[in-house]
């Protein structure tokens, strides 16, 4: 544990910590471009210069390259260090085009910040600037090489961290070029992280280009709903449009990055065809009319078919708040079935696998990254949950061995194909992780876990809240909709963000749907009430490990300005909500229905064992829910 002094502050850090990190630990900022917590040091940019005034090392040193040692006395404000950093900025600005007004990174650019902070103001170089030809890197990422300051972050991430091979560094001296051999879409499923990593505007999000400045952004900490991993994100919105999504750090979960599938997933939220208006028998109506109609129809169905003829159907993508209220709703309308899953098979496997996952057994993405032995069985992480494949690569980079049972899958690392789990030396491994999905043979899995007590399990569920849905289904004795319908007693379905296949809806006299997606249930519903997408509400999802994570409201729901024609915009009628602004979080609508049916008003969805989640902070590592 070396002890050192930085700017007269005493710091004690763990062995191997760099001076830069030691300074950060006591909130002393040191400029840096090439250093990145996930990518480590490179020593390329030279902007993190500090002066060592006493101790085992003396003089100007790069703080990112220097391990902290006992007795070091470091000054970040020494005139010589300040001058060095100023010169580095001057050198970087020699060729930087200074096109901030037309650059999408303007306002969220590290180069801007450190140029201001570094004290370089007047350009002394009078020659011409170097220019590059840009490449078309596909529909998601814009390339503007002239802005490049050669920090090498992009190539270090793309090739080393993510294992991509179609993008790299070419040329030398003043002509270093970061790109592909020829134009073409970046092949890596993690390419979008270049946008987050680039300290200036070489890589910008093409889907959000020229739409807003940093200070216009509506932002909030959120959680990706693309799969069950629950990677942390910061979506960015403006004018009721989800512009882009950036990665948010969570050491236990996604680390610093997210996958492209989660990043470039704006279309559904922004879709002009998205159902945003309450409908009764396909007529637009007000929210109150739709609610009244729903209550009336529920009463009619009960009257006509008797109690127990209604099924309340939630789903593994429904946020936990809504899912928690469904049992009460089922009770209020004397439902014949409470369902969290539509298919019997999904219900069976999800419930079974959830049952295997205790707090000790669950492998987080961090556990996978730290593992020395990983077995992938019956699933394809790169396709189903790309960030888990990236975590597997990090384990492999640290010397871990990766085994795959069966064939036909690809990973961004080298792996050994084995016939069965017996061929894997699990007993020799320190922290083995088994990655599987709902497609696995449950009996074999249980037997293996019984034998290998130190084996951790990472299960890939299909949806963001599969784990939560399964926990509730188990506790409430819920059944699958498939089974409920098969009984023949179900005459009415209230679908709460459920994806119900047409064959289960056929022949059901009454369907009501609450959703923000245009699902089959929404299409057939006699009563429809629009709900908010995850970026339009505060909510909670329980990820594949059983970790509850809070996401916050990023934007108000409403038809994006971009989707408005001159007929409706600017608005000529006074209204208190924006066009398409009717959606409410599903749980609030469910609470209104409950109030309508029973008179009970619910202001807080978390009760009893879930109370602890009331205080869950979005910017935390989340809470494990196994033992709540």
């Amino acid at each position: 544990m070396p002890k050192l002094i930085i700017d007269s502050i005493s710091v004690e850090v763990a062995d191997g910590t760099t001076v830069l990190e030691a300074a950060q630990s006591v909130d002393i900022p040191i400029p840096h471009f090439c250093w990145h917590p996930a990518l480590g040091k490179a020593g390329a940019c030279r902007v993190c210069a500090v002066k060592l005034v006493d101790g085992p090392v003396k003089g100007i040193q790069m703080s990112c390259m220097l391990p902290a040692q006992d007795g070091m006395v470091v000054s970040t404000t020494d005139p010589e260090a300040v001058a060095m950093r100023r010169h580095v900025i001057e050198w970087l600005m020699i060729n930087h085009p200074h096109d901030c007004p037309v650059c999408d990174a303007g306002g969220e650019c590290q180069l801007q910040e450190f140029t201001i902070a570094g004290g370089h103001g007047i350009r002394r170089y009078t020659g011409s600037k170097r220019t590059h030809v840009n490449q078309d890197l596909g529909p998601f990422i814009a390339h503007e090489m002239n802005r490049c300051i050669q920090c090498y972050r992009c190539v270090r991430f793309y090739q080393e961290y993510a294992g991509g091979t179609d993008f790299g560094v070419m040329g030398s001296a003043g002509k270093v070029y970061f790109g592909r051999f020829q134009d073409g879409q970046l092949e890596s499923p993690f390419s979008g992280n270049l946008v987050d990593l680039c300290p200036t505007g070489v890589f910008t999000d093409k889907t959000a280009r020229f739409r807003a400045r940093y200070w216009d952004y509506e932002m909030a900490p959120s959680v990706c709903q693309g799969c069950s991993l629950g990677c942390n994100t910061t979506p960015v919105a403006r004018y009721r449009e989800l512009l882009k999504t950036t990665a948010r750090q969570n050491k236990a979960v996604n680390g610093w990055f997210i996958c492209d599938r989660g990043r470039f997933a704006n279309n559904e939220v922004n879709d002009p065809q998205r159902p945003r208006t309450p409908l009764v028998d396909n007529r637009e109506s007000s929210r109150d009319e739709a609610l009244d109609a729903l209550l009336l129809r529920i009463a009619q169905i009960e009257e006509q078919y008797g109690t127990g003829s209604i099924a309340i159907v939630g789903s593994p993508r429904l946020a936990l708040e809504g899912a928690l209220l469904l049992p009460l709703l089922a009770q209020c309308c004397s439902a014949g079935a409470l369902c969290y899953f539509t298919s019997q098979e999904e219900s069976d496997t999800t419930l079974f696998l959830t049952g295997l996952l205790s707090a000790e057994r669950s492998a987080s993405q961090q556990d996978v990254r730290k593992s020395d032995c990983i077995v992938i069985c019956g699933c394809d992480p790169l396709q189903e949950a790309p960030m888990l494949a990236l975590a597997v690569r990090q384990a492999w980079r640290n010397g871990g061995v990766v085994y795959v049972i069966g064939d036909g899958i690809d990973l961004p690392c080298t792996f050994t194909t084995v016939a069965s789990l017996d061929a894997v030396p699990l007993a020799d491994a320190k922290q083995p992780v088994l990655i599987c999905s709902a497609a696995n043979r449950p009996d074999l899995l249980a037997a293996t876990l019984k034998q290998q007590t130190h084996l951790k399990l990472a299960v890939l569920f299909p949806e963001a809240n599969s784990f939560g849905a399964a926990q509730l289904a188990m506790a409430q004795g819920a059944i699958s909709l498939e089974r409920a319908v098969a009984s023949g007693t179900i005459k009415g379905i209230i679908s709460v963000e459920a994806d119900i296949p047409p064959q289960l809806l056929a022949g059901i006299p009454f369907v009501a749907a609450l959703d923000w997606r245009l699902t089959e249930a929404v299409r057939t519903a006699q009563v429809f009430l629009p709900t908010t997408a995850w970026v339009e509400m505060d909510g909670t999802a329980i990820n594949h490990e059983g970790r509850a994570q809070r996401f916050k409201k990023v934007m108000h729901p409403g038809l994006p300005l971009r989707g408005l024609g001159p007929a409706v915009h600017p608005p000529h009628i006074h209204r208190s909500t924006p066009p398409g602004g009717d959606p409410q979080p599903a749980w609030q609508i469910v609470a209104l229905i409950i109030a309508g049916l029973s008179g009970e008003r619910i202001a807080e969805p978390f009760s009893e064992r879930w109370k602890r989640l009331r205080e869950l902070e979005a910017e935390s590592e989340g809470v494990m829910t196994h033992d709540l």
Partner: protein
Amino acid sequence: MEQILFRHNRPGRCVTFAEYQAEGGFAALKKGLSSMSPDEVQQVVIDSGLRGRGGAGFPTGKKWSFVPRNLTGPRWLICNCDEMEPGTYKDRILLEANPYSLVEGIVLACYAIGVRHAFIFIRRGYEQAAANLRRAIAEATAAGLLGENILGSGFSCDIDLHLSAGRYICGEETALMNALEGKRANPRAKPPFPAIKGLWGGPTVVNNVESLANIPYIIAHGPQWFKATAATPEAAGMKLFCISGHVANPGCFELPLGMTLGEIIDGPCGGMRPGSSFKACLPGGASTPYFTKEQWGVPMDFDPVAKAGSRLGTGGIVVFDQQTCMVAATLNLVTFYARESCGWCTPCREGLPFVVHLLEQIEAGQGSEEQITILRDHVTYLNNAFCALAPGAMGPVDGLLRHFEDEVRAHISTGKCPCRN
């Protein structure tokens, strides 16, 4: 004058294997492998005072001793023949005349450090030298002096010749190792030093051609003999000096270390060209600060040259006469370095072109006083680059500002280059 490396030279052609052997070649190898332990070989080299001939002048035997002992796994020796320093061509002259001393030296070095496999990393343009080395390696292998179980000693050693793709930075030992591994030739961070973690992560020694070629003679004749060939008691051995520029007789000469600059120029070089007088020289290749007439009497050995404010470097002396514009000469040198930067770190990649730009303006008569300040800033702050390329490139600029500031000022005040009409 007694010659060490050049003793086998034949006029106009390369010495043959038979001639080299007949004149005592490979005797040192036999002696070393049959009667000396690896530690003894290493100790003799340490005692000889041999300092690396590639430019930095680090004691060769000491470098070997840094390789950890009792370490399993492969270790490597690399002979650095990527001679790309402007004004330096000694290794080419040596290998075109005699590749055998190098082969013999490499085997002895490998024996001393316990290396099974050595590489010669040779500059792409050195086709004749490469051909000579290929032949020498084949002949030595055929004669049982290289390969499996050399001379029945139980020691085995192979040499691979690797043709560089051709960048100046490949001469930097860690960039060289990256290039050899098939990666971009960017230097690596030190520590870890190559002797601990080098090629493919194994302990690695990188030695210059001339350093290794001297080993057989040190083993054959002993450390005291080698030491005594120098001109001063402090120096050790002979050195290949390659002199170019405005001297009457430019060329590569093997001279005792410690001869003064004046003795070298007036002696083997035959003085300046008719009509030329000495203005300045680069004492040790393009990355060393200039010497002027003031340093005429400085002994050309590592420490005295360093004390006089420059570096002995590779021993590539480039002489300029009174008509040379030192700004233009410096500009020429820095242009080379700006082009040869690997592009890894900011000071080198961006700073050197800035210096080129400043010198271009001054040379074109468009300079200003402020630019002298900026040049001085660069001499200071380019020292904080990732590797030694940028600080080396600023050597001539440093010399220019130290010795020829008046000449720089004259460019600025008159608005033109005073050396041109």
